[in-house]
Each structure stands twice: as C-alpha cells, then as structure tokens.
C-alpha cells in the first residue's frame, strides 16, 4: 500500500504557489488508482515524489510499509515510473533502448535479454525491435515508453499520461495492457486528463487540484448523491464541479 501523509513540495525556482500543499492519500496494494487533476494540479510532482526523484521537505511517503526517505533503493527497485514525455533515446533502436534501460536498471546477461524480449512481446513491439525510435509512429513510441517501465517487472507502476497523442488502436492496446498488469497483481497509479479512461480502468479515483486532494473513492462513491446537492452524471461532471471551470495555465 502507498500511504502519503501531509506532503508539501515547492519547486526552488518558482515563485508560484506550492506544487503540493499538505497532500494525504492512500493507494491500496493491487489497486488501479486513477489520479485526475487539471494542469499544474500536482500529479506529475506526486509521481516524481513517489518514484524518489524528488524528496519532500515536509511530509512522508510509505510504500508497502517502508518509509521512502529511509528505504529509497528498495522502493525504487520494486517500482517504475513511465514519464509523460517520451523518455528514451530517439537515435537508438527500440531494442537498443530496452537493452540500455535494462542494463542501467541492474539487469545483465541472459536475464536482461529475457526481460527485453518479454517487454517487446508485452508491448507488441517485436516486429519493430530494430527500428530507430525516432522513426516509430506516435503509438509505437508510447508503447516503447511503457515497455521500458515494464523491464524490471515492477510491483508498483506509476503511469503519467500514458495515452497522450495516440490513435484509438494504440490507446485501446495500452489500456488493455494496463488491465492485464493490474490483473497480474501490479499496483498501478494512472495519472490522466482523460476522464473516460480513468472511469473505465480504475477501481479508485483521486481528484487533485492546487496540490491538495479534493476527493477520493470508487467511481460509484464519487458519483453518489451528496445531501443537498445535485447528482453528478459523469466523472467529468464531478471533476468540473470540484475543480471549477476557470482556465488553467
């Protein structure tokens, strides 16, 4: 289980408000947790903190009972971050990228080769393994981005907007892959702007804005009628009601 308690974070160069402002939430082990929030709400910052890239000045994170600040290496060994950007090397081939990230991730020899083959198969990239990443389509690039995250068979997968800018077929494939990973026991935190994806995939949803958690629960719980308020018909309806309609930067 992931437990986040009173998390604060502010970027050093920004004069803007804090990225996270006393955030607390819980993600049960084995769940598929949807993280919703407008631009600048703190989703990517939270994922960076959960993956140990950033460390919070205030607050605490526990992953499977381990305090992240004390057991960073152990937590990093069982988790994987798939960044929103295409975080690989365009001039390397699909396979070279996977081999590189397997190598720097501590895999070597036949174990590394086996994991590379497995990731290629899971992301349906086998026919494109020798293609330069820069020459791949948007969908292939997204699949490669995820495949790299699967190399170490993580128990916790942190996905940041994994379906941005791709065709419906690739989106369908990625969503099915996430379902399969979840079914196999992986805990998934799925940050997205796409309400329908989150509604379809996730068993728990958290709505984040201005660095704080506004609501958390199953879709049914979130859409349930609050006393004295009109029932939200869809997740998007609820999201706009919680975060307001004002445009964000």
């Amino acid at each position, binding site marked *: 289980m992931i437990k986040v308690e009173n998390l604060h974070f502010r*970027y*050093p*160069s920004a004069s803007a408000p804090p990225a996270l402002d006393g955030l607390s939430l819980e993600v049960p082990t084995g769940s598929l947790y949807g993280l919703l929030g407008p631009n600048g709400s703190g989703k990517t910052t939270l994922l*960076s903190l959960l*993956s*140990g*890239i*950033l*460390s919070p000045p205030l607050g605490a994170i526990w992953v499977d009972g381990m305090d992240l600040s004390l057991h*960073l*290496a152990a937590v*990093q*060994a069982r*988790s*994987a*971050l798939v*960044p*929103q*950007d*295409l*975080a*690989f*090397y365009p*001039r*390397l081939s699909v396979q*070279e990228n996977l081999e*590189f*990230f397997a*190598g*720097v*991730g*501590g895999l*070597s020899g036949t174990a590394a080769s086996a994991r590379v083959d497995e990731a290629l198969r899971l992301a349906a990239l086998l026919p494109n393994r020798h293609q330069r990443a820069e020459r791949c389509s948007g969908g292939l690039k997204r699949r490669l981005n995820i495949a*790299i995250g699967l190399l*170490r068979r993580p128990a916790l997968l942190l996905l940041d907007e994994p379906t941005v800018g791709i065709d419906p077929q690739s989106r369908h494939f990625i969503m099915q892959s996430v379902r399969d990973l979840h079914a196999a026991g992986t805990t998934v935190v799925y940050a997205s702007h796409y309400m329908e994806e989150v509604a379809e995939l996730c068993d728990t949803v958290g709505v984040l804005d201005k660095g704080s958690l506004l609501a958390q629960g199953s879709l049914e719980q979130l859409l349930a009628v609050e006393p004295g308020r009109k029932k939200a018909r869809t997740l998007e309806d609820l999201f706009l009601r919680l975060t307001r309609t004002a445009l964000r930067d």
Partner: protein
Amino acid sequence: MGPLSQLVRKEWLLLRRDGHALLLLFLMPTVFILIMSLALRGLFAGRSQVALSCIWLDQDHSPESAELEGRVRAHPEFKVQAVSGPEQELREGIRAGKAQFLVLVPHGFGRALEGRRPLPLRLVAAPSLEPVLLKLFDASLREAAARTYLKVALRRLTKALGGDAALPGPGLDAMQGLVASPSFEGSAPDSTPSAVQQNVPAWLIFAMFFIAIPLSNTWVQERAQGTYARLLSLGLPRWKLLLGKLLPYMVVNLLQTGLMLAVGVWLVPVLGGDALALGAAPAALALMALAVSFAAVSYALLVANLARSSEQATILTGVTNLLLAVLGGVMVPRFIMPPTLRALGAWSPMAWALEGFLDVFLRHGGLAQVAPRVLLLAGFGCLSLGAAALLFRRHQGG
C-alpha cells in the same frame, strides 16, 4: 556490463549516429588547421628563424662589392640569390613576391668608397613586407656596408702611414665582439611558434572545447524528455550520470587530439607547410591532452546545466567558446596582442591549454614545465564539474 558502462556505450552509439556532431568535432578543426597553417605561414615565418629572401644585383663586380655580398650572405637569417638582368624586371619580381628584397650595388660602388662621396646602395622591399622586417634588413645592410667601407679606409690609412705596418689595437673583425650575442630572459630563443606550431594546438583546443555543443544539446534534450527523471527513478545516482557523459566525451577529445596531431605531422607538410614537431616529452603531451579534455568536458557539462533549452545551450556555448578562444590566443596569437589584452587572455583556460602545448612542442618542456598549466586546467575542470553537479541537483530536484 554495469550501469556506467551502459551509459558510456549509449553515448558512443548516439555520437556515432550524429553526423553533424562528428563533422563539427573532427572535420572543422582539420580544415581550420590546414587553412590557417598554410595561409599564415608567411606571417609566422617573419617572426621565427625562417630566412628572409633577397635578390642581389651586383652591377659593380669589384672586390668591395663581392666583400659586401659575402658579409650579407654570412647572416643566417638572410637567403641571398645573386642575379643579373634588367633592374625593372627584378623590381617586378619583388612586386610579384619572388623575394622580399632587392639590393642593387651600383656600378662604381667599390671605387667610390675610396673617394669622398660614396655611391649609395639601393634597397627595394616587397609591398606586403612588415616595416619591422625592412628596418631589420636595412640595418644589417648598413652594417655590412660600413664594415666594408671601414676596411677600405683602414687600408688607405695604413698605406698613408707608411707601407705594410699594421695599425695598433684590435683589427676590424674584433668589431663583432663589441656587443655580446643576444639572449632571451627566461625562455628559449625559439619560443615564437611557427604557423603549424601555433595553429595545430590552437584549433585542437578550440575543437575540444567545442564538444560543449553536442554534449549540452543531448543533455538538455535528455533532461527535457524526462530521460534523466526515468534514470534517477531507477536508482542511478547523479554522479554516475555526469560521469557517463564525462568519460565518453573525454575519449572523443583524445581521438580529436590524435587526429589533429597527425594532420600537423603528416598532412600539413604534404600540402606545402612545415611539419609539426611534437617535442620530446610524450608523457607531458598526454597529460596536457587529458587536462584540457577534463576542463573542456566539465565546462560543457556546466553550460548544459545552465541552459534551459537546446537553443540557449548552443548560443551560450558558441559565444563563450569564441570569447575564450579570442582571449586565449587561438584566433590571434597572444604574442602579437597588446599588453592589456594579453593580460586579460591569461585568464582564459584556452590560453593555459595553448601555452601548455607550446611548452611541449616549442620549448621542449617536460612534465615539470607543464605541471602548472595542468593544475590550472584541472582546477577549472573541478570547479565547472562541481557547479554542474549542483545545478543538476537543483534542476532535477532532490
């Protein structure tokens, strides 16, 4: 392979596939070395011990004119070619650059030395000649003529004093001993480089520092694309990421060194220039190459971490490298700079690098001579690398 070897291998693959970077790092300095070494050969020759060429037209053919020619020929810096022919044709030859000077000894020169009014020699210089060289040659010619005149005058005086008796005191040849042979204070007499000695290390250093362009661009892209975030999330420490750039790019710098030295030693002479002499201290040369490379790549990492975009990185690298190169004597040799600029240039790491290489190539320096430059470059590299690490930490959080 461990993570560090993977990082190095990845960098190597990326560089091999970046044609533009390879052209910038290897072809650009090669072309600069060839052009500058050949084009500036004459200019540098004027400052070194290469002979000044002179056409000698003796219209007198007297013992005195022969003696005068012999005295001028005795100067190791002058290459005298005796010719005959119409004066106008020889003047055109000077204008066309066939020689730097024409000396015309007029008919009756020897006999006139005995009289009251000597016949003057005529000296014509090439239009492109530096005035200082003209003054040097003119002074030497006047000295030779004066000694020839004195010899004739002494002969006449001896004769007037009564036959064959020699004059008391030192002879004419003792004039040479009136001024002791000149010496340089603190450095060897051949410390001014030739064109190839100046241009090979200068453009090599420039190319080594220019590695900041491909390095900073890949660094900025990796940071912007979230690749570093991903690598850090795998538990890779920041120092390994920095080292993963430092090592392969230092290898590239050493390959540049090998290629540029080979160009200086073998290719420049094939094209008509002087061959580069590498000196007699390969260990000092290797140490200098390593120190320059460490400084250049560390500086590149600092620029990469200062810049927020590839465009910024390119501009920052281009401008600062050009500035350091101009001040450091890469583009204009420091020995012809005015004192203020020369003092300012002493702060450029490219100047430390260039002087270090010249210590080895020109002044026959060894490890002890290059040690101060190596320490300066290593200090600059450590400061740059430290600042880069701090900025990396700040950019990437944690």
